[in-house]
């Protein structure tokens, strides 16, 4: 492992599909242990960036480097042992148990001839425990609520033993209680995280934010410094006022139209 190289970095990353430019000229470097949030309005390229960084899609310009190696020169298996993705929408009509859905996360560590080991079983249990779903292991997937399914997806990603976790708008379609629980869980995870978010207030808990607008990276830095009045107006089309909670000092943004 190249310890001097950053965990994940991209240089001049771009994707053009059928003449439409989805992403252009994005360069950033991920610090180990950090929580990077990706924010931007609809269509700004958040999902595209995540897919490119995870290696699920191939860029038309630029490159992505995982620990100093070109992502697309590495085998998918090697990538999957380092990096795990929780997608925005992933569902199945198969009647499988939650335990088996999470067990899929061990796929990059298994081979056709290697049988299922006790170690694999243990890791699956730990992943379920980490998302507080141990009691639901034997239930069928479709009997889970939306929030439980998201947590199960995260458990599956954790079972991959990744050093880097990528989440694409994981709080979509969840009610407020589930959203808070999920964010708290993600905050506690001991892995480097890249998370695409819709809600700017939720994004305030990230170490750094990358702001995308129409496929370009327009700002990168600490949330308070990045979410300036200009940024909010130009990129998001709103006015924001910072509020501070007198009890614990957390800051939040209140929005109003321009």
């Amino acid at each position, binding site marked *: 492992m190249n310890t001097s190289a950053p965990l994940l970095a991209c240089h001049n990353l771009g994707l053009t599909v059928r003449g439409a430019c989805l992403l252009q000229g994005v360069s950033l470097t991920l610090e180990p242990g950090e929580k990077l949030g990706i924010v931007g309005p609809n269509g700004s390229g958040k999902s595209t960036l995540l897919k490119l960084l995870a290696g699920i899609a191939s860029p038309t310009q630029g490159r992505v480097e995982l620990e100093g190696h070109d992502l697309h020169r590495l085998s998918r298996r090697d*990538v*999957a*042992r380092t990096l795990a993705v929780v997608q925005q929408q992933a*569902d199945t009509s198969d009647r*499988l148990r939650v335990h*088996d859905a999470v067990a*899929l996360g061990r*796929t990059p560590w298994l081979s056709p001839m290697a049988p299922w080991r006790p170690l694999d079983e243990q890791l699956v249990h730990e992943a379920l425990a980490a998302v507080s779903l141990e009691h639901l292991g034997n239930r069928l997937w479709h009997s889970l609520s939306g929030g439980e399914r998201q947590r199960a*997806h995260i458990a599956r990603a954790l079972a991959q033993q990744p050093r880097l976790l990528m989440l694409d708008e994981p709080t979509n379609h969840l009610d407020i209680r589930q959203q808070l629980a999920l964010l708290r869980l993600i905050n506690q995870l001991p892995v480097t995280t890249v998370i695409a978010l819709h809600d700017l207030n939720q994004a305030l808990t990230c170490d750094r934010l990358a702001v995308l607008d129409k496929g370009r990276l327009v700002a990168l830095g600490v949330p308070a410094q990045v979410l300036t009045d200009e940024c909010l107006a130009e990129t998001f089309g709103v006015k924001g006022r910072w509020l501070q909670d007198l009890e614990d000092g957390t800051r939040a943004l209140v929005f109003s139209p321009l």
Partner: protein
Amino acid sequence: MRPGWGWSLLLLSGALLAATAMGETALPFGQVLKVLANQLAGAHYPLDPIDVGIVWNYRLPRALVAAACGAGLAICGVILQALLRNPLAEPYLLGISAGASTGAVLVSVLGIGGGLISLSVGSFLGALLAFTLVIVLARASRASGSAGLIILAGIASSQLFNALTAFVIARSANAEQARGILFWLMGNLSGVRWPAVALAVPVALLGLGVCWWQRRALDAFTFGADSAASLGVSVRQLQVLLMTCAALVTAVMVSLVGSIGFVGLVIPHAVRLRVGPGHGLLVPLSALAGAVFLMAADVLSRQLIKGQALPIGVITALVGAPVFAALLLHGSHRR
């Protein structure tokens, strides 16, 4: 799984024996056993050579090919359902069998190929053409991201090929030709001998082997192709490998025995109901169930109506179409 393999082989052997013992004419079971003893164990029972020929050269190869064909088509159904994420996917519904029929008809009725290409080769090429068409359509519609469109494309493609077949028959074939072709089109194992076994069994085993080797990758597709990619599966490579495998297996089987539908649809679903969606069990058990199912359908096709052989495709459709309808209803119910 150790005890499981033993039971499976026992069941398969039992089914093979039963299929060999039953046929157009009534042969005493003792005779059948004696023939097998002579051929396999070097015994020296005195036997009518016609009986020996019937059991060893007609019925046994026929049962083996039915088993291989059933296993192969079931495996193709498993592959297509996993990769296309659609429970209705199977080679027949995707138009591959229809393409094979068109190929066969072009060769036998229009004489395309000038007598150098046999019915089987024509159907093989037709099957591959139809499969290619579906893949092209699949890739084109992947951008719009709907696997349901594949099924519709497959149905449209099969209607196209069926119409071509009907057109050629109506325009060019006399009644006898039409009858010969139509019988073949619905599945016909009557001409199968040992050379066909030498082709069908290895192909089925190959399909089974490839599918078994990739069972974990197939599981990884549970939540979609992107999810499989993030789990470390080389999605494009796997799709090419497995689709090619399914195309070849289907083309070979259809070229040997004609068009038999619904095996790839019914069997994987029936097996899933019992053992769940995990491919570690689904793949081998679907192969086994497919083999037994088609052997039973073959025996039934010869015994259902006295003195007349029904095409096997009729039997599988009579079983398969209601199951298909039930699946549709069940699916819409849950939504």
